[in-house]
């Protein structure tokens, strides 16, 4: 005989304001099988939970319904409370009276009626709930980190420091990511290379870290604790085992004029190359698209000069499987292409560059050796215009969101420029200066007050190139309320931060969600910012949202902590929401076997004592089943059912409506 307790939460005013909680608990008390119906200000508070625990024990409750916030918020909390009182946690369900009711309806009568319905549905369901035991699955204590930028490096180092193995996968020839391209970093102006390269070396040499550069995730199988990830090791045409990184090959390579991606196209590289001198690993790869040997079979010079015979033109992509228990996605960002702005030259003006190009110009290791020279004629620009929010906060042409880092790096750019060109004029056009961060506002003030950057609040409406090579920048000074025209030699656009191309595809491989802009979705915007909806997959850095270095590093360490937490136990408990097959009624049509996304549904032979096969049926592997229930709904005879969402439960819910 069911003895259900119903507990209605006011959530302070949040539910109480629009839902008559007393009326709901009174109505609930009259529902079939309900023996307790009470309401309380804060059910999630300790006295609230105590109230539930007490009732479970004293009233010998067989089931509990908590009418409160979304189960995504507090289901764990309340189920834990129930467990403490000796009730199987899966005999507790939540009715969503806040997100789905009080917050979205203003009419009290309607909201209250809906609340009563939602509770009745859950009471009907909970009467049919069965005690479930969490499923234990072994955990492979190795982590996969995707992306070798500062986020990935930090996460890998922290996990490795925790004594667990890490596979660090980077699509480029070297780790280091965008940070390796920066000249100095705000707000301290310490040199990016100086603080990053030691970390890169440490990551490469750490005994717990396996580095896979020039590699990509090809496919993913399995689930939290037991992923099998296939990595595509792209053909390098250079055997890293033999190569000593002496550099003879790329010094001799005759194909010289390839724009170097690392230098934002300002510098040039060979067809066989290391992207930058401090690359890790410091071993070249051949860019097949440009190599005449690989294209036409002519040249072969690098092979001739290589003292170790490390060059292998026959090299092929290889697929390599790794078994990992957790994954950290740290695929980072790229800059939005400002070619979409016709008014800024549509990408055709060579002296209108993006932030990375300026970083390379300012970098001592850059193509100009740290001298600010403009691309078109190599002259030192006497006037530089910096334009913030280029493609950010513009839902017409660009992106709705604020890219967050541009205010700071633009201030930095203005500063660096003024340090290098004393007489030069640095003009910054901005909408707002968003310098929230430790030492950030002070940094911007310094750029303005100490280094004399001219800040103009307003947008630039047009950039045109005059015949004498001057860039005529026309805009508005919205503080002075007048149009301004500046004759500049160089314009730096702070282009919006967008996810890397292909990040959606990667997200789909891992079953991770992403927003309309392609940034990965965290499991909860506040309380679970590094987890994703996919168990065992965590986020670090700008793949989740625009972030600066300090923020990226903190999130990377947070993700590492989550991974280490997951690895702390040899087994992990999984929600026991899994499918079961009724073997007596299964007709073995195999629809479920075909439908299962996880290969959890399998053929099963029913044998007699002699081992003679009597009948074949379908069966579900507990370890592989993730509980989507697709098998149950393709089963015509309903011989497959799903724990937690059984036919009986759903049927009862529908009858309660």
């Amino acid at each position, binding site marked *: 005989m069911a003895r259900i307790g119903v507990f209605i939460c006011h959530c302070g005013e949040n539910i109480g304001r629009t839902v008559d909680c007393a009326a709901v608990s009174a109505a609930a008390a009259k529902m079939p099988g309900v023996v307790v119906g009470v309401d309380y200000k804060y059910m999630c508070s300790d006295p609230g939970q105590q109230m539930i625990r007490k009732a479970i024990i004293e009233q010998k409750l067989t089931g509990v319904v908590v009418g409160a916030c979304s189960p995504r918020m507090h289901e764990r909390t309340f189920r834990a409370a129930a467990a403490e009182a000796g009730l199987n946690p899966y005999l507790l369900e939540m009715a969503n009276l806040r997100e789905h009711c009080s917050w979205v309806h203003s009419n009290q009568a309607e909201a209250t009626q809906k609340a009563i319905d939602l509770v009745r549905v859950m009471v009907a369901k909970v009467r049919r709930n069965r005690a479930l035991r969490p499923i234990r699955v072994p955990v492979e204590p190795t982590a996969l980190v995707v992306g070798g930028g500062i986020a990935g490096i930090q996460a890998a180092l922290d996990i490795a420091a925790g004594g667990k193995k890490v596979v660090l996968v980077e699509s480029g020839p070297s780790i280091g990511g965008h940070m390796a391209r920066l000249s100095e970093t705000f707000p301290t102006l310490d040199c990016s290379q100086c603080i990053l390269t030691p970390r890169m070396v440490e990551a490469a040499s750490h005994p717990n870290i396996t580095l896979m550069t020039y590699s990509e995730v090809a496919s993913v199988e399995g689930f939290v604790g037991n992923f099998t990830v296939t990595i595509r090791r792209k053909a390098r045409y250079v055997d890293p085992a033999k190569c000593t990184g002496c550099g003879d090959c790329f010094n001799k390579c005759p194909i010289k004029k390839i724009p170097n991606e690392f230098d934002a196209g300002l510098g040039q590289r060979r067809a066989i190359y290391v992207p930058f001198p401090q690359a890790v690993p410091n071993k070249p790869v051949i860019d097949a698209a440009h190599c005449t040997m690989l294209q036409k079979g002519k040249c072969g010079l690098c092979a001739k000069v290589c003292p170790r015979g490390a060059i292998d033109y026959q090299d092929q992509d290889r697929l390599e499987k790794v078994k990992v228990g957790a994954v950290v996605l740290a695929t980072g960002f790229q800059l939005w292409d400002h070619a979409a702005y016709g008014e800024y030259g549509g990408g055709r003006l060579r002296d209108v560059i993006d932030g990375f190009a300026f970083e390379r110009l300012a970098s001592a290791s850059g193509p100009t050796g740290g001298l600010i020279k403009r691309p078109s004629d190599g002259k030192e620009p006497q006037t530089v215009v910096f334009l913030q929010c280029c493609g950010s906060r513009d839902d017409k042409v660009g992106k709705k969101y604020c890219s967050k880092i541009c205010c700071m790096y633009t201030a930095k750019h203005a500063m660096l420029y003024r340090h290098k060109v004393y007489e030069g004029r640095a003009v910054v056009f901005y909408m707002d200066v968003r310098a929230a961060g430790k030492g950030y506002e002070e940094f911007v003030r310094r750029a303005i007050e100490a280094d004399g950057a001219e800040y103009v609040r307003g947008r630039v409406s047009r950039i045109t190139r005059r015949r004498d090579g001057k860039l005529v920048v026309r805009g508005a000074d919205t503080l002075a309320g007048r149009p301004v025209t500046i004759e500049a030699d160089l314009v730096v656009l702070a282009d919006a931060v967008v996810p890397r191309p292909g990040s959606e595809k990667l997200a789909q491989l891992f079953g991770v969600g992403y927003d309309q802009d392609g940034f990965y979705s965290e499991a909860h915007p506040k309380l679970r910012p590094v987890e994703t909806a996919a168990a065992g997959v965590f986020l670090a850095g700008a793949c989740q949202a625009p972030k600066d270095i300090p923020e990226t590093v903190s999130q990377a360490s947070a993700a590492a902590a989550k991974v280490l937490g997951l690895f702390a136990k040899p087994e992990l408990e999984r929600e026991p929401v899994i499918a079961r097959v009724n073997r*007596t*009624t299964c*007709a*073995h*049509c*195999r*629809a*479920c076997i*075909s*439908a299962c996304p996880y290969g959890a549904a399998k053929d099963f032979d029913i044998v007699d004592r002699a081992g003679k096969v009597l009948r*074949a049926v379908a069966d579900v592997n507990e370890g592989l089943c993730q509980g989507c229930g697709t098998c149950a709904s*393709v089963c*015509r*005879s*309903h*011989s497959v059912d799903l724990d937690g969402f059984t*036919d*009986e439960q759903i*049927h*009862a819910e529908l009858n309660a409506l």
Partner: protein
Amino acid sequence: MKALREAAEKLLREKRVSLVIGYEGRKGRPAFFAAKPEDCGRLAYDASCRQNLAAYLGKPEIRARLPVALVAPPAVLRSIVVMSAESQVAPGQVLALAVDGDSYLGTFDAAGAAELLRAKYSTLAPEPALLERVQGLLQKSPAERAAFWEAEFSKCTRCYACRAACPGCYCSRCIVEKNAPQWISTAALGHGNYTWNVMRAFHQSGRCTLCGACEAACPQGLPLMLLNAALDREALEEFGSRPGYDPEAKPLIGSWSADDDHSYMR
């Protein structure tokens, strides 16, 4: 028919099958089970044979006597192929004595039947008249359609002859007999009748070979083929589904493609 009888007789004499299921010459062409070579003289086949003998392959009594042979016009051949795709017919356990009109086409296993179908019957489609009736019904307003089926389904006595006649209905425990929970009311009333008939048709989607046995078997003359044909066309147009031509085919419901249509989803 001589050839058919001889082929059947041969199969029994050579003990390649323990039973030949066919139609008897008598009026009404009832099913006839020839267990002995000499029985085969009573076999007959012509256009009036409406029963889909593949339906027997789902029955335990018959399964107990595998291997068996069936007299099989094209639609029944397709049923055999569907059943083998759904692991209901083990390779070599069922032989088809393929017939079409008054000619006997040979003896085939499921794979052979599929080949024959692809070669000679790749364009089987519901009769135009039937499709016209479907179209005509779709022309009507939702309320008129509802009224039409209200009238039809109200005749249903829930005898389940349609199910018994259908080779696709081989479940040992039909959903309508599940009582915890009972999704489909068994009372021969409005909503129970509606749900039953709609679900019966839906459970055949991507599997129905349009043999017409269900409608032929219905003592109340419900136009069940309207439902079957409508689904058959939709499955063909949307997913290129042509059940009964490939013994390896994946189930239409239970597989998917990234470019399936979802224009109706918002």
